[in-house]
């Protein structure tokens, strides 16, 4: 069932056991899991069936620190959530991403990759993915990794019919919780806002917030402030350890044979470090995207190389005469070190139309990440040269320690952390089952529970965690 307002929903007298806030990949997946288990669920979606400026305006906010995207363009507020502008790139976090790293404080999850692997079959069905293939070692330091370019499932479009026909799932559009109320043990209700006005209070046995990697923190920070700590009783880490995937052009490469790595339809291939290399260099995970260069870039690259390495330039020129495609741009995206100081706060000066304080995002890249960028490119370049697969040139601003450019990709629009998973209540918000510490009936879905970000796009892991949470919650309710 899909309703366009809370008023319309109220008239059918549906009695949900679970209230899910948000209809993005996490919210929709958890709702489908519970619905298929026969558990009645209501999904409150703040936006409508389509994009609107009015809805997006609720997402405006401010960033303090490094340059970042406007907070109302880096996410979407309508049915399907930010899956509506997702590029469809799929990969699950690596096994090593779940493990603590001695050289990077506050890393490590309370679960392992093995805990989400049982759900990857479902994830493939949901995201329409072919089978995942294992990584291919290029050297002891570098892996050639798979990043599947999927059809980019728009969760609103793909599942609208199924949700509309479901007897166990009610999706209520244009409706969201401005705050949850709680007594320090349980969420006792939610204050709703629907179609531009106060819609009263609402209650359910269980609540799952799936409003996104920025909004989950905002909702819970505001709810906790209003409830005097009654919604997140252990709030030391709430809003903290927020992460992105910084992404910049890192240089160029000349390849002996571009087809060596079976580049995808976009002529892109992806590489990451081994755990041993990360440990030796004490750096974070990273992903290097190798993209075939247009011909003018190739000529410029050879001219530059001719001054430095004539032998190599001569070989390169002869390859070009054979019209081989053999030059590439390198983009690097890397894992951010989890830092408590990278955090979401509530604005003290600015509120949205419903009176909820807007987000003030404090975000800064650390020296460890800067080292990851430089050492990562050197590691990749060294492997390419040692294996005679090609040669790499690192951009000057990276080699010389220059400022990060502000006219490049900047980051991946991947909002992670803020309500991270863990066992230490001072450094985490949810437990291994995504249940808020100290609360009996409040769960969190989505990338805000990520402890670390790894180097890959988060949607695949978000969907796997949502399958796991949906199954877990179904069992809890069935008892």
């Amino acid at each position, binding site marked *: 069932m899909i309703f366009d307002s809370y008023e319309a929903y109220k008239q059918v007298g549906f009695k949900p056991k679970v209230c899910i806030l948000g209809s993005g990949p996490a919210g929709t997946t958890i709702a489908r899991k519970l619905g298929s288990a026969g558990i009645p669920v209501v999904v409150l979606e703040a936006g409508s069936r389509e994009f609107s400026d009015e809805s997006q305006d609720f997402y405006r906010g401010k960033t303090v620190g490094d340059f970042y995207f406007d907070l109302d363009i880096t996410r979407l507020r309508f049915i399907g959530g930010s899956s509506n502008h997702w590029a469809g790139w799929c990969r699950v976090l690596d096994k090593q991403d779940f493990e603590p790293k001695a050289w990077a404080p506050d890393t490590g999850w309370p679960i392992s990759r093995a805990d989400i692997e049982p759900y990857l079959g479902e994830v493939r069905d949901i995201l329409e993915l072919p089978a995942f293939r294992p990584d291919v070692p290029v050297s002891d330091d570098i892996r050639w990794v798979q990043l599947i370019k999927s059809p980019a499932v728009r969760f609103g479009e793909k599942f609208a019919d199924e949700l509309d026909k479901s007897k166990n799932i009610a999706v209520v559009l244009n409706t969201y919780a401005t705050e949850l109320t709680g007594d320090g043990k349980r969420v006792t209700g939610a204050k709703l806002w629907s179609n531009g006005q106060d819609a009263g209070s609402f209650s359910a046995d269980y609540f799952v917030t799936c409003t996104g990697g920025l909004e989950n923190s905002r909702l819970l920070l505001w709810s906790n402030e209003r409830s005097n700590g009654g919604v997140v009783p252990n709030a030391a880490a709430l809003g903290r350890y927020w992460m992105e995937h910084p992404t910049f052009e890192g*240089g160029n490469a000349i390849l002996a044979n571009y087809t060596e790595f079976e580049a995808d339809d976009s002529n892109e291939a992806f590489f990451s470090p081994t755990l041993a290399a990360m440990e030796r260099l004490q750096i974070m995970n990273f992903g290097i995207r190798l993209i075939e260069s247009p011909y003018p870039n190739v000529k410029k690259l050879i001219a530059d190389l001719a001054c430095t*390495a004539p*032998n190599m330039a001569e070989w390169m020129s002869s390859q070009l005469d054979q019209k081989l495609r053999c030059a590439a741009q390198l983009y690097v995206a890397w894992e951010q070190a989890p830092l408590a100081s990278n955090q979401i706060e509530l604005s003290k000066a600015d509120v949205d139309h419903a009176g909820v304080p807007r987000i003030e995002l404090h975000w800064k890249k650390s020296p460890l990440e800067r080292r990851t960028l430089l050492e990562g490119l050197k590691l990749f*370049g*060294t492997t390419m040269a*040692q294996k005679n697969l090609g040669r*790499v*040139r690192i951009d000057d601003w990276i080699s010389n320690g220059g400022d990060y450019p502000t006219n490049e990709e900047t980051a991946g629009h991947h909002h992670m952390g803020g309500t991270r998973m863990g066992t230490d209540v001072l450094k985490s918000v949810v437990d291994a089952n995504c249940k808020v510490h100290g609360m009996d009936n409040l769960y969190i879905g989505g990338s805000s529970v990520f402890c670390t970000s790894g180097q890959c796009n988060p949607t695949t892991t978000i969907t796997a965690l949502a399958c796991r949470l949906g199954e877990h919650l179904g069992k809890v309710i069935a008892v």
Partner: protein
Amino acid sequence: MSKFVREMSRRAIVQALIALPALSLFRSQQPVVDPDEIVEINGWILRRSDLA
């Protein structure tokens, strides 16, 4: 001054000095440069054999 030097003629000393550079021919060769060594030049990560 040693007896040996005192007994050498000035001509013999000059000839000995002139011959000194030729001794390098009998030295062992310079250490071999590894052509596979990785070097970083102007941002490029190269093998030494790439350089002319």
